[in-house]
C-alpha cells in the first residue's frame, strides 16, 4: 500500500512540482493517504457535498476574474485611469465578498484541502487586485502591472480548481455553438 501524502483527491492523481513552484512553499499535509482511501473518497457523499457547496464560490470567483480582466482591457485600451466609481467595480466587490463568505462557511474534508487552498488563494489574489482598483484608481503603470500580475496568478489556480463533475468549468458550454443540447 503506497503512502501518497501529496495526493489531490479532486484530481485523483499525484503531482511532482517543478523547482521554484509556489506550492513548495506551502506546508504539506502530514496525513498519510492510501490509494484505497482516495478511491473510496472519489465516490463519497462527503466529496459530493463539498463539490456542490464550493461551486457557488467558484462561479463568483470566475465572474470577478472576468470582470477585472475586462476592466484592464479597457484601461490599457483607453485613456481612462480611474474606474473606482464604476458600477461593475462595486458589483465585483460584492461578488468577491460573497465568495469569501462561501469559502469561510465550507466544511472541508481533508482530502480536498488543497482544492480549498487554491480557491482561497484565488480569492486572495482577486482581493489584492480589486483593492488596487478601488483605492488607487489605477493611476500608474506600476498599478496596472500589479493588478495584472494578481489576475495572472489567479487564473491558473482557478483553472486547476475546475471540475466538470460539479459544473465548475471556466466556460459555460450549455448553449454554446458546440452544444448539442447537453449541459456543461
Amino acid at each position, binding site marked *: 500500500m503506497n503512502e501518497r501524502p501529496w495526493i489531490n483527491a479532486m484530481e485523483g492523481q499525484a503531482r511532482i512540482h517543478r523547482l521554484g513552484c509556489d506550492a513548495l512553499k506551502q506546508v504539506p499535509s502530514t496525513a498519510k493517504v492510501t490509494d484505497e482511501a482516495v478511491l473510496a473518497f472519489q465516490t463519497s457523499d462527503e466529496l459530493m457535498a463539498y463539490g456542490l457547496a464550493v461551486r*457557488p464560490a467558484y*462561479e463568483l470567483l*470566475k*465572474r*470577478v*476574474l*472576468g*470582470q477585472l*480582466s*475586462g*476592466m*484592464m*482591457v*479597457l484601461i*490599457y*485600451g*483607453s485613456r481612462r485611469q480611474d474606474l473606482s466609481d464604476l*458600477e*461593475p467595480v462595486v*458589483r*465585483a466587490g460584492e*461578488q468577491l465578498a460573497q465568495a469569501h463568505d462561501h469559502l469561510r462557511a465550507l466544511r472541508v474534508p481533508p482530502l480536498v484541502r488543497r482544492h480549498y487552498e487554491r480557491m482561497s488563494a484565488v480569492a486572495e489574489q482577486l482581493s489584492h487586485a480589486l483593492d488596487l482598483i478601488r483605492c488607487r484608481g489605477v493611476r500608474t503603470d506600476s498599478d*496596472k502591472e500589479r493588478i*495584472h500580475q494578481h*489576475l*495572472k496568478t489567479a*487564473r491558473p489556480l482557478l*483553472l486547476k480548481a475546475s471540475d*466538470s463533475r460539479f459544473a465548475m*468549468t*471556466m*466556460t*459555460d*458550454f*450549455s*448553449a*454554446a*455553438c*458546440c*452544444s*448539442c*443540447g*447537453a449541459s*456543461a
Partner: protein
Amino acid sequence: MASYSIWVLEYSAVENYHKSGIVYGAHNQGFKKLPYCYVVIKGGGHVAMVDVGYNHKDYGKHLGDKFGVTNWHPPRDVLAEVGLKPEDVDTVFVTHAHFDHFGNVEDFPNAHFYIQEREIAKWIWAMSLPERMRWLMTAMDPSDILRGVDLAKEGRLTCVDGAMEEVLPGIDLHPAYDTHTFGCMWVEVRNDGTAQSADRWILAGDLIYDFANLEGDGDAVDVETIYTPVGLAVGSQTNLLLATEEMMKHVDYESRRIIPIHEERLKDTFPSRISDKSLRITEICLADGETTKVGSSTHSSFR
C-alpha cells in the same frame, strides 16, 4: 483586379449538430455537421485572420467528451495548408468573444487584434449579474479576456468603437450590436480596393451560420426565400435580421458573397479540398498572382 485571397480553414468540427441551433425554430429537424473554421485573408503584404479558434489544451477533452467536438488541429497545421505560419499573421479581426473565436490568441505572436469595445464592456456587465442570469455568459471564458489584457498591454489590441474603415487597405469593420453577442462585428473586403467596389466579400462571423439564414424557405409566406436568423442570440433575432439586411445591401443582394464559416455547404459553392487531416480548405477568391491551394479551379464564376 483582386487584392486579396480568402480561404476558410476548418480546424475542428461537431459531426452531429442539431439544426435548431443553426436556424431559429428548426426544431426536430435532425442534425448536420458543424465545422469550426477561421478565415485567412492574404494580400498586399498582409496576412489577416477573422477569428482564431480555441485552445485545445484548455477545452479539448471536455468538448470532445461532452459535445462531440472532434478532429481539432493547431493553427500551425491548419495554416500550413495554405502555405502560411501563425507567425505570418499580422492582423486578426475578432468577430465576437466566444471561446471558439477568441480562444487562441497566444498562437499568433505577431498579430494586432481588433474587437468591438462594446463586446468587452457588455461581457463585464453580464458577469456582474446574479447567477440566475448566467445564460448571458454562455460560451464566454474569463481566461480569454485575461489573455486580452496581455494583448492590450503590449499594444496589440484595439478596442473598436463602431464602424472602422480601411483597417487594412480595402478592409472595413462593421458592428452588429445586440445580435449573436453584445458587440459582434462583421468584416468586409472590398477586393478591388475601390469605395464602390463590385467585388466585395463579407466574413459574417456567427451572424450567419448557414445558407438557410440567408435563404430560408419562404413557402409559408409565398415568397421564394426569407431571412431566418440563427438560433443563439443574446441580443435579438430582430437585430440579426437587420444585420443580415445590412450585409446583403453591401453585396448588392448577391448572397454567395456573404461567407458563413460554420456552413459545410461552402464546398458546393466554392472550390475546396480535404487535407490529409480530414480538414476542409475552401478557397473563396484568389488575389492576382496567387496560386490556388485547392486544385485547378479558376474561380471565374465568382468574380
